């Protein structure tokens, strides 16, 4: 492994780029968040204490933290896979939303299937619908050169309109004004972890954490294997790093765009398994609640590596869960505080990624050189 990084952080040791730099960026985001808390007139240290306690302080909290983390893992992996192909998939939100449609169709219309078949069918439905929603922008990028950032943004809005239409006019529970479907059959629920583990004799506190979580971890491992240990992953990364070189190597970059976006859309679609089959047990409006966008923060924070994505997801899951406790304990601070922190993390870890490079270079290289 080379010890020295290239690119904008050229010259810095790799450990500094992989660990120190993201750490500093995160600290900066937290510092500014602290300022916002001060602006509101609360004590930031108190807030941190409640956040940490709320996220990890008791067994049930950990379950919730990991439940939220599950959503982030899926959407974070979705963004990361597209990243490796040089694509910015901002459409995770819409892909997850439409993926939920796939899940709901399976759970509502194939409910004659037993649990052992309906779950894989729903997984396939989520993947298929999520991938399908990613396919059109991908195809337009690959074949017509339409900028995928813009088209995926547009597709998020189109998805929102389509889902409202379906939920209000087509799929709504008969006789109800609520824009939601009827409930899934109980055998189409994903069992929560406390039940699943309880069945094998391990007792944990009850929480919405369900079988989607191990599936998310499996997906993370699968993405790692796919990107770095398969020929398909090699092709995808080559096309992302240098389309001209990929073409020279017999790899079709447009084809890789399609592959990357289909995988990305499927992963985003999986998010709906956790929300719909794990908790809501029906299709509701806007269940994606910004997780698709947050996936960008997660992928940036995790530097596009599945292990990093899992770690960043736990961090964001903790913020969500801690933020809920915080809103309860300190009513003047709403859960939107988490959105603020998210925005700041994207800003500092993403757009201002290399802000600390000159300072780090001065600090580290001077010591090494002199």
């Amino acid at each position, binding site marked *: 492994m080379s010890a020295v990084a290239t690119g904008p952080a050229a010259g810095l040791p790799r450990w500094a780029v992989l660990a120190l730099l993201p750490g500093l960026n995160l600290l900066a985001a937290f510092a500014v968040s602290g300022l916002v808390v001060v602006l509101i007139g609360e004590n930031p240290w108190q807030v941190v204490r409640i956040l940490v306690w709320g996220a990890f302080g008791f067994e049930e909290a950990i379950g919730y933290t990991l439940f939220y983390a599950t959503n982030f893992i899926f959407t974070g992996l979705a963004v990361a896979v597209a990243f490796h192909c040089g694509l910015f998939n*901002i459409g995770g939100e819409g892909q997850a939303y439409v993926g939920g449609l796939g899940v709901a169709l399976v759970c509502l219309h194939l409910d004659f299937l037993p649990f052992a078949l309906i779950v894989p069918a729903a997984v396939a439905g989520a993947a298929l619908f999520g991938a399908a929603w990613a396919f*059109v922008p991908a195809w337009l990028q690959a074949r017509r050169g339409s900028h995928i950032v813009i088209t995926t*943004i*547009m597709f998020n809005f189109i998805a929102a309109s*389509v889902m409202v239409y379906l939920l209000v*006019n087509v799929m709504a529970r008969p006789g109800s004004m609520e824009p939601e479907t009827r409930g899934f059959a109980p055998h189409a629920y994903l069992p929560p972890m406390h039940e699943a583990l309880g069945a094998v004799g391990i007792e944990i506190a009850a929480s919405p954490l369900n079988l989607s979580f191990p599936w998310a971890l499996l997906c993370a491992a699968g993405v790692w294997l796919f990107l770095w240990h398969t020929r398909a992953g090699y092709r995808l990364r080559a096309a992302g790093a240098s389309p001209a070189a990929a073409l020279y190597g017999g790899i079709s970059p447009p084809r890789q765009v399609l592959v990357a976006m289909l995988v990305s859309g499927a992963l985003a679609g999986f998010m709906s398994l956790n929300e719909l089959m794990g908790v809501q047990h029906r299709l509701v409006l806007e269940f994606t609640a910004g997780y698709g966008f947050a996936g960008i923060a997660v992928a940036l924070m995790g530097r596009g590596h599945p292990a990093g994505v899992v770690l960043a997801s736990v961090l964001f899951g903790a913020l969500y869960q801690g933020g809920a406790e915080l809103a309860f304990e300190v009513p003047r601070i*709403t859960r939107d505080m988490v959105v603020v922190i*998210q*925005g700041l993390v994207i800003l500092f870890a993403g*757009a201002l990624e290399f802000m600390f490079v000159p300072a780090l270079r001065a600090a580290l290289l001077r010591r090494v050189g002199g």
Partner: protein
Amino acid sequence: MAVPVLDSTLRLSVPLILAALAGLFSERSGIIDIGLEGKMLGAAFAAAATAALTGSPWAGLAAGVGVSVLLAMVHGYACITHRGNQVVSGLALNILASGLTAVLGVAWFAQGGRTPQLPGEARFLLLEWPGAAALRDMPGLGAVYGELLSGHNLLVYLAFLAVPAVGWVLYRTRFGLRLRAAGENPHSVDAAGVPVPGLRYRALVCTGVLCGVAGTYLSLAQSAGFINDMTAGKGYIALAALIFGKWRPVPAMLACLLFGLLDAVAIRLQGTDIPGVGEVPVQLVQALPYILTVVLLAGFIGRAVPPRALGVPYVKER
């Protein structure tokens, strides 16, 4: 029915026009701006909060513009000074603005994220043209004068005046020439002895000002205060209109009017049957701006060629 629909089209297009022109400055100088939404939202909140405290719409406007420019400068700091990813930066600002306005709104006003209802004198009120009331009931020109032209607030007229003004700046002034050059080939600007970063920062100031006015319009003219997430995707529609108008002022304005018309029609279509067609899903009409933009981007109706250096950070070695 035509005049009222056109009337509300005008009103609904105004924030789109201002935001699209804002995006035009940024993007023609080479900086992608998907953060129009966040700047508008931040401005809407700042304007409403300030107007609520001071009772002056002008102070509100100043605050709205100030916050929007500040956000634009953060975008510049990330994208120009640190050559960060422009899409990521814009997205971060959108998320930040949506979180901050909600958090601060609740903490400061304790009304579930709204700012207090503003009295008339703290808002931009409708300007009645001379004789408008008398002419309003006359068919034809009278209605056009009395209802369509007269009876809007100052910011509406400002938005439509801004279109030729921006065109003039872009095509007839030194600043505009350099700005367009920076978006096409920043190296040429540098070689001509004009520093690119300063130019792009100035373009972003213009973006900030126009977005600030757009946001202020939402909370001080269209509504009487700030409501959570009141931009509701208007920043993205404006971006779509900018692309639809191929990054030119007048076509962008026409796209905004088209999208505004769709919005106005959608509101009226709700639950009504069109003879021979049946009920048109209002969601379809609402999604049309996005669908049309995708179709345009796909090259099926003309071709939208962006400024060549758009999104590419300018690297100058030292």
